[in-house]
């Protein structure tokens, strides 16, 4: 087990394109770090530089305190899990796990000890003498993990490990990976383009865009306190709604409502008269169903409901709105960059499934304006970041004590150190 420290890591290809641009990131011993972002953001390139598959143009890559820039992959003692996880049908589970050690000439008794230890961790002990065909899909995946475990690597690396599994196995495997990491407490770096995977697995998540680190934080902090428009749009499903916000006479005017501009924001917006407001779907409510004690904290307003979707445990309503050309243009660019299929000129509202709001009618909604993020449309910076103490306390309340560093401004994320990893118990 080992910490991985990256300082000013850059990868520039022959054509001058910086695939990874000046990234500094500390991954603590035992931490589960996710690298996430849309295709082409540089996350896989960064992982490959950790493994030793890509030469590092500049910067320092340290594993367990040792600079590894010039070390061959095999000398870094890392394990790429699921990279080649073919199981051999005629070999027992034991041999399927053991044979890489045989190849290295590990003594039999040492092989036995390591395989049995891995089998205990993976709850495969009673299956060791079986053949892969006698195992369930999930058990087979655990055998493949066993092969990675017995190498006793300093860290596990996963490069989109679930992308080639069918939907059924994908969820199952996600749980297995999380369980394994928690049990073993091995430093793990996991690359994915899927924000749901990122949010459910990581102690911390590093969001990347065009080779630049945008924000490194706990899943919760990313969700509650996105540093910029890109992170806000990338994290969350259904995604955050972006609406035009006009600043006029000390008021923030959104398509359906207006509210007083918080004084802290007023000092940050400069001469911006047009901002982008970000509202999470679940921050709205059917005004008829809001608890009395909450009602006063928010505003009610009327909208025309285009479509509703009732999913049993959830209900969504879609509300179209108009936006000025410059905002529409900016949002279209963002949508393309995020590879998103969501139409940005209709608002998604999450409603209680018991709500009676129906298609084609007007409805009264409720919103707490302190939840609204305001972004600078020119550079995407979140102008409401760390504004109110309520939100700050929520973000500090991450599970189990990984300290997220200060949220960096857009396009200039610095590393955020970790006090200590979330340990297995």
């Amino acid at each position: 087990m080992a910490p991985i420290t990256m300082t000013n890591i850059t990868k520039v290809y022959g054509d001058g394109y910086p695939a990874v641009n000046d990234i500094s990131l500390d991954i603590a011993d035992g931490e589960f770090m996710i690298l996430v972002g849309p295709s082409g953001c540089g996350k896989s390139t960064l992982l490959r530089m950790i493994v030793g598959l890509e030469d590092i143009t500049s910067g320092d890559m340290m594993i367990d305190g040792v600079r590894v820039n010039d070390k061959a992959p095999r000398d870094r003692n890392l394990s790429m899990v699921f990279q080649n996880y073919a199981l051999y049908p005629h070999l027992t589970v034991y041999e399927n796990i053991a044979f890489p050690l045989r190849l290295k000439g590990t003594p039999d008794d040492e092989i036995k000890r390591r395989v049995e230890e891995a089998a205990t961790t993976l709850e495969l002990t009673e299956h060791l003498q079986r053949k892969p065909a006698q195992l369930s899909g999930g058990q087979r995946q655990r055998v493949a993990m066993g092969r990675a475990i017995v190498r006793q690597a300093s860290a596990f690396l996963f490069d989109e490990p679930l992308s080639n599994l069918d939907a059924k196995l994908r969820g199952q495997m996600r749980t297995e990976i999380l369980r394994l990491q928690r049990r073993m407490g091995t430093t793990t770096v996991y690359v994915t383009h899927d924000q749901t995977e990122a949010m459910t697995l990581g102690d911390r998540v590093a969001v990347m865009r065009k080779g630049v680190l945008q924000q490194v934080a706990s899943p919760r902090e990313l969700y509650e306190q996105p540093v910029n428009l890109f992170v806000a749009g990338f994290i969350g499903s259904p995604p955050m709604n972006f609406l035009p916000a006009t600043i006029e006479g000390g008021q923030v005017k959104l398509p359906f409502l207006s509210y007083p501009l918080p004084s802290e924001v007023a000092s940050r917006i400069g001469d911006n008269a047009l901002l982008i407001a970000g509202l999470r779907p679940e921050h709205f409510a059917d005004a008829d169903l809001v608890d009395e004690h909450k009602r006063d904290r928010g505003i009610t307003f009327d909208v025309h409901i285009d479509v509703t979707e009732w999913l049993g445990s959830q209900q969504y309503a879609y509300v179209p709105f108009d936006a000025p050309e410059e905002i529409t243009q900016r949002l279209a660019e963002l949508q393309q960059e995020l590879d998103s299929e969501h139409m940005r000129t209709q608002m998604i509202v999450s409603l209680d499934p018991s709500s009676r709001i129906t298609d084609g009618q007007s409805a009264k909604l409720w919103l707490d304006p302190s939840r609204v993020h305001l972004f600078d449309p020119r550079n995407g910076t979140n102008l409401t970041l760390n504004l109110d103490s309520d939100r700050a306390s929520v973000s500090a309340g991450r599970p189990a004590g990984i300290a997220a560093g200060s949220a960096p401004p857009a396009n200039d994320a610095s590393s955020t150190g970790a006090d200590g990893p979330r340990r297995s118990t």
Partner: protein
Amino acid sequence: MPQLDIRLRVPTPGLLALPWLEPLADWTATEVPLRDIPVGPSRHQVRFVETDGRLWALKELPRRLAAKEYGVLRALETRSLPAVRPAGLVVQPFEDTAILLTRYLDRSWQYRRLLMRIPPDMAKHRERLLDALASLLVDLHRNGVFWGDCSLANTLFSRDGQVLQAWLVDAETSEIHPQLSAGQRQLDIDIMVENVAGGLLDLAVRLDVPESTFPSWIDEAATIAVRYQEIWEVLHAEPTFSFADRYQVEGQIRQLHDLGFVVDELSLEPAGAGDGTPVGPGAGDDKLRLKVAVGDRLFHATELRRLAGVEVSEGQARILMGDLRAYQHHLQKLAKADVPDDVAGRRWADEVFRPGMARAHRALGGIGDPVQAYCDLLEVRWLLSERAGHDVGDAAALQALAQRSLPPDSAAQMAVAETATGQQPALTPDLIRRLDEEGQVVADGGPDGLGTGPGNEKLADSMSRDRSSTENP
């Protein structure tokens, strides 16, 4: 929800008519001409369909991954690399799946087919498999392709003269780069060694060989890294020598040609001090560094096409060129004069190659590739003659081919992999021994000859003369 999107590169009626709206697993033999072809365990649904006179492989996998693999296979095709050729990509309008369609490689087979039909003590054939796989990985790496999952199971093999040609069939984990880093190559080699060890061990267990031999199977797998390095080093060597010793260039070029590689360009540059500073002539240190830009592995194939107008693969061409040269030598002896290359090439093709190919293919019951059958005939005749101490003639070799009584280590033995499963009797050590004995009888019954072993020109000449006299009485 994705829309149905059918992209076919060979838009034949049969392919268009397939039930693309159904999950691949639900396709039934009553509505689709499915074919049962044994493949190793796969993490995805794979099925085979025969339509419009061709066999197609279909693999269902997540949409994103299918599109990626399709793109990689297209890139491999553009680079003329040995890989299955992508024929289409069909995005299905449900779940998140797509079907990748590839054309099944004619006369190719899985490693298991060969190794299951040949006794486990015949390590020579396993070596041929490993050589082919190592050579494929070198080809890919030279072209910036990181495989990510190089294994015997992800490869198909076909016969190519006395060697095997390996073809990449699974590019799920592959990536194309402008150039590979040393780290990428090393990881790919490590993966290959581990996968090959797993594949061979699995087979050893399946063949029920004694457990005590497992370490030797693992050692065998480890040799594939050495095989890779040897080829890589020949291709990338940059030897230095003094200007006066520049004749050494020829040896270097011959080594590349022997491996089948074409030389695109060679340059001799001042060796310098390693810091880019050229070393001036006359300074007593006029060392030159040889750099060779190596092209495709088509040296003999190109030569044979030029001389004889015959199109064959490189491994076959290598053997046929030897045959052509021997025949040219024979013609020159008869004419007591030089016979130009093009004349010899045309006469060899008409008088030796085409009739010989037809006879050899007939002897093998019309199974497999006719050109390969002729290559087998040449090899068997050579080996039987070497064993007999004289040229045994075509007739004896043809008989040996027909009876499959072939020398155990001969490449011709690999013809056992050409027959589809079900038509092929299992080769047991007993059967081999019996066939061997029959082969000996055949060899002993041949005419007196001259040969003492491969490389013996007299034997080669005698073989050519004998063949031409049979064809042109």
